[in-house]
């Protein structure tokens, strides 16, 4: 029974008071560019998932609390939460630094975009 803390209302509670929404930071292509989305892009968006053994980033809703969605960084081996952060935000830098493999690639790419 994971112990989760909502970064919006700062309430801590059992995982059963929250709703888990799968991988974080999955962009919906149609929102930015409804035309010219390839079948491959659509598959990536709908099905292809980063599925790491170790640090993972996911979406969570404060389901029984304030009702707001947020992000969590969690180790899928130890279940330790490394950070909770806003639904429109990126993880804290020190957590991004710990990201490996596909997640590391993703964040480097995001950083480039921002600059």
């Amino acid at each position, binding site marked *: *029974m*994971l*112990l989760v803390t909502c970064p919006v209302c700062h309430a801590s509670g*059992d995982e059963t008071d929250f*709703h888990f*929404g799968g991988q974080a930071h999955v962009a*919906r*292509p*149609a*929102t930015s560019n*409804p*035309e010219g*989305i390839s*079948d491959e892009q*659509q598959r990536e968006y*709908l099905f292809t998932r980063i599925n790491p053994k170790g640090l993972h980033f996911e*979406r969570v*809703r404060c389901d029984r609390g304030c*009702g*707001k*969605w947020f992000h969590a960084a969690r180790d899928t081996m*130890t*279940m*330790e939460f490394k950070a909770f952060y806003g*639904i*429109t935000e990126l993880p804290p830098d020190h957590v991004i630094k710990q990201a490996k493999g596909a997640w590391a690639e993703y964040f480097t790419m995001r950083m480039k975009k921002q600059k």
Partner: protein
Amino acid sequence: MTGKPYRLTEGGSRIDRNSRMTFSFDGRDVQGFAGDTVASAVLASGQKIFGRSFKYHRPRGVVGLGSEEMNALIGVGADARHEPNLRATQVEIFGGMVAESQNRWPSLTYDMGAINSKLSRFIPGGFYYKTFKWPQAFWKHVYEPIIRRAAGLGRAATGCDPDTYEHMHLHCDVLVAGGGLAGILAAEAAAKAGARVVLIDENPVLGGIADLTAGMINGECAADWLKPTADALQMMPNMRVLSRTTVVGHYHHNYLMAHERVGDHDPALLAAGAPRQRKWKIRAKRVIMATGAIERPIAFANNDRPNIMLASAARGLISRYGVSPGTQGIVFTNNDDAYLTAFALQKAGVNVQIVDSRARPDGDLVKRAQEEGIPVSLSSVISAVAGTQAVRAVKIAAYRKGQGRVITERKVDCDFIAMSGGWNPALHLWAHNGGKIRFDDSLQSFRPDTHPDAITAVGAANGTMSVAETISEAQAAGEVAAKSVLKKAKAAKPAKIEVKEPKRGALEPLWFAPATGHYNEGNKHFIDFQNDVTVADLELAQREGYESVEHTKRYTTLGMATDQGKTSNLNGLGVLAEATGKTIPEIGVTTFRPPYTPYSFGAIAGALTNDLFLPVRRTAVFQWHTDQGATWEPVGQWRRAYTYTGVGEEKHQSITREILSVRNKVGLLDASTLGKIEIKGPDAAEFLDRIYTNTFSTLKVGRCRYGLMMNELGFLSDDGVTVRLGEDHFLMHTTSGGADRIAAWLEEWLQTEWTQYKVFVTPVTEQWSQFALAGPQAREVLEKLEPDFEITNEAFPHMSFKIGKLGGFPVRVYRISFSGELSYEIAAPAGYGLSLWQAIMEAGAEFGIGPYGTEALHVLRAEKGYIVIGDETDGTTTPDDVGMAGMVSKKKTDFLGKRSLEQSELKRDGRKQLVGLLTEEPNDILPDGAHAVADLKDKPPMKMIGHVTSSYMSPSLGRSIAMALIENGRARMGETIAFPLAGGKVMKAKIIGTVFYDKDGGRINA
């Protein structure tokens, strides 16, 4: 010794000799004292056999003192209250208790199953993998049934459990698991520092095995010194002590499960309303594991005979229950600790001698034995045991480490054996959630190492066997734990504690005591008593290549019995290590899994059983429906009236009646369960355009529009009518099952994708009772309800709504229809729901109004070809599949699911399309889900081309109708297709459009 041979005249810290009680064991009345366990009382009565073993059905007696017991498993209670497989060493007796032994037939002393013991040579570990293969059918019909009957231990209860269970949540700074010396002192230290502490112990009284240790504390024996401290704990305001409670599991983030046996020991408590058992769900900031240690048996020939027990158990029987296992005892050991048992026995007047496998033990206790004149045979082992139903004698042989077989033996008469192969720290909790463990040579056992969570091990659980070290370790741990969680901990002054304890000599591992003839030549050296796993079985597994410790475990079933290897796993590893020349750490351990000891499913479920198993959601009219004889249809957690069956009426008759009253007169449906969501904001219209396949920004204020929703895969997920209350204000209706799902769905998109939208979403489903007043005479009924608004067809046309009053009722009335008739859905605040419903029924009485249920509704809508999400769609159905491509906007650039409709599979030809069906024989009703085939064959397999989604006898048309999803259906109009049914019958049906009734929709707009 007294006349009653095994109950000593004095002693027994747990029993109250002034309160006698009688219970029955296998139908025989047994006398005991308050505080006795079934084990102590039955042993006191002279009976040694408690059960039969799992595979060989060998007679077995008590081995342990508590939850580690693996042999003396009994069933307690009658009929629906029967509970099997309880450990006799844990079950506290009470007057009138009914207990029985298990896994024997016809009786304990004469058991047919014992034939297996004779055949044992032919059924080594894993034998069943090698045989029972021919002939094929025999496994299921012959071999397996025999095996199943022979296996299994006790029997299940009969009927529903009459007792109750509950859960209790608890949060604390420090949880201390185990109430022995270490646990009590750790808890005291933490509590004195100001922490909120919970101390949990599985026994009825605190103290652990302090009463069995040698140490003297401040001049008193450990137990006496400890008692006042233990009593004081109960009084501390920031301390909670749970007895008869076992911490059964340690889970992520220091979440612990504890199982309290509230009323098992005292029926009076149950009668007074107490739950039988309570499960504690505890979130602890820190955990201190003080779970003690479990003594190891020794593997010697026939070491499973009744009255061969652990040294600590023999000691405990005497000091706690004033019961001696016998009159002539042998203590067989490889360590100093068991010498204490010899002293206790001698003090109790029992003849005892010691067999010690070690050559030169040099501990204080060994010296004391010599001083007290107890015969000690060094460098010796027990090489044989005489007696089947009870120990009669043993053979003692000289022994050198690593010796394969013994040469010379001498016989010694005795009637019990107390054995000790050393102690294993009870580190199960440590390992449940990923704690690392390491092997300790001095213990010849594993002890806690590192752990990812905030948990500390102290005392014997940590491998610390000395009293003095345990005390300092425990107090330090308690204080550190408190400090780590408190902003400022109180400074507690350490009390002065002086400990005198004997110097211990080293333990020497003895994994296997040789016998005449090799271990693997018929001698049974048991490792796992309950599962009848012997040394020979373990070596066989190795020889056959089942080398991984997990393979050995699974192949031989070592450690898979109800004690989960508490007394057998390490001995097994020791044997494997010697057999393979590896070290025990190289062999490795199997995974420790919760629970520490088994606990009841009832306690796991808690209060949520019977009427509380899953909530039933009720509308405001629920009781009225019930009184009118409604039968129910579960929809999500709701219960909706399926049909109102009158006296002398069959369901199909009442359904027909309800349908016809809507078609010909007027009917009333409780539609309160439909989802209702208020959506408001400057971007509300644009937001809805993203959610629905069709357009809502063009909807006029005051009007209603039917909408379709897809998920992102392009498949239909929900539908319903949404009305525009104001320029930026909408009320969305969803399906009953979809209400919560869709509300969450809207929030998700607003919060996570279109965060720029200014839109508020507030679900209001439960605020409103909503009733569909439907039928040609609906308007007349509405008129009688004193509307304060115009209701003529012109003023109040189809797909519009009014907000106003019906008499004194504040209402919203929507002119929408799911029945194809003139229909008004009238919504009023739920508190007025029942009286509005009754008012409508009264107003409609003169028009012959009747209530109708969900089944009638389904037939009505099917006659009109309206789809039901979940019937006509199944999660892989697109709008075009159900002929609603027209409702998918071509103009809108983006809405949910739009892009997926472009995937090749979703737009390919030959997809299944929704069509209407008329069976050739009007009275034939196609079964739900029946499949049509491309070409009819006399037997399967046949190529299927689609299936029936809805099928009914239509009273309005006086014939059967159906809808189906058929490959290329819309191109097959007029074609007749075949549905081969079970039993060879074939139904043929003609494909037509989906609208069967009132095709031009005149009635809706009337």
